[in-house]
């Protein structure tokens, strides 16, 4: 590990860690950070002995079988280490259940611009209406239909727009 000067370390606060986490992107959706996605559930800085500073980041996976998890964990560790911590521990647990409602509202705008229809707010049980009322990210028509609940990644569904006659993908509400 690279040695860091101690006074430098003393200035690292949790909010600086949150800021750097904004630069860690989800590899399957490169326009969104792990914070946008609502994947980070806790950030803690510990000093087990003075002079030693450890960051502990807790995250919750979007989909249980998401193959990107290990890559995301690794990128989080690498980025946060750059702040000068002696160690960065990234913990994955299900204590907080990830649902698409955890996604920030700005993130949903970014998603739509990226060409992926964002998930609607579920607030409880997913309803038929929430599943069907999806706006096409290309022409903004809501005259669309579900082609397949499964798309190119676990978090996407395939839809078709009758207005612009194009297929598009949606980030699934879960």
């Amino acid at each position, binding site marked *: 590990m690279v040695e860091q000067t101690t006074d430098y370390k003393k200035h690292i606060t949790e909010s600086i860690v949150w800021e750097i986490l904004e630069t860690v992107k989800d590899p399957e959706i490169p326009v969104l950070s792990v914070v946008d996605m609502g994947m980070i559930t806790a950030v803690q800085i510990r000093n087990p002995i003075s002079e030693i500073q450890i960051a502990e980041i807790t995250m919750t996976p979007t*989909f*249980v*079988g*998401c*193959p990107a998890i290990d890559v995301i964990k690794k990128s989080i560790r690498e980025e946060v280490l750059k702040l000068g911590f002696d160690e960065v521990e990234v913990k994955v*647990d*299900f*204590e907080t*259940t*990830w*649902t698409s409602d955890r996604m920030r509202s700005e993130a949903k705008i970014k998603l739509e611009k990226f060409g992926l229809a964002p998930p609607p707010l579920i607030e409880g049980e*997913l309803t038929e209406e929430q599943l069907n009322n999806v706006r096409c990210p290309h022409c903004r028509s809501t005259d669309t239909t579900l*082609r*397949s*609940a*499964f*798309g*190119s990644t*676990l978090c996407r*569904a*395939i839809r078709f727009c009758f207005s612009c006659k194009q297929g598009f993908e949606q980030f*699934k509400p*879960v």
Partner: protein
Amino acid sequence: MNNEALKDLLYKMADDALIIGHRNSEWTGIGPMLEEDLAFSSMAQDKIGHAVALYKILHEVLGEADPDTLGFKREEKDFKCCQFIEQPIGEYDFSIVRQFLFDHAEHIRYELLTQSSFQPLAQLAKKIRGEIKYHVMHADTFIKQLGNGTEESKARLQSSLNHAWPFALGIFEKSEFESALIEAEVFVGEDELKKRWLLKISPVLESANLKIPAINESKIVYGGRKGFHSEYLKPLLEEMTEVLRTDINAEW
């Protein structure tokens, strides 16, 4: 709570998920249409992810071996999956009927487990049930479409349902730990699950003009939960671990 009972429940759920995940993956590249190829491949990925998460609880909370060892290095007799999910994928009609019957049972199982007194499982169940909801929706759509389709599609579904039924009832085979799990409020039990499952699938089958076959209790295919498997599990495990066995200690 006795740990052996918890382990038994987790093993059967994890093994079901791993083996059906492997079966689903066999549709990759040969699905009857692109969307179905993707659907079965995605469901495979989900299921294998669920299996890993369950093996992790076994490893981290209950002191069993690590997930890779549990998934890939156990003997056939150590697997607790039901015989239903070991059966070959057959033609598409069998696979979709199996998915329908199995995933509804699984969806309800996770729903019930969100109330489990065993916290690690209750937390995971909350997460997984949202994912399986899509598996169930997928199956319902095709059961209804094909059941109301052509004479051939109807006949094929009904014949697959007849074949699948005795196996499907084997999902609810009880183990020696059944009453311990119920008493400790870990799980409400297989009878309750089966009751809810029948209530859930019956109207869908009805709207698809399909009839639940009447079968004698003695025809139900049990054994899987106790480590007795059909002739199909061993070849599946051999195929699944073929690469691993070329160099058992390789680091990946």
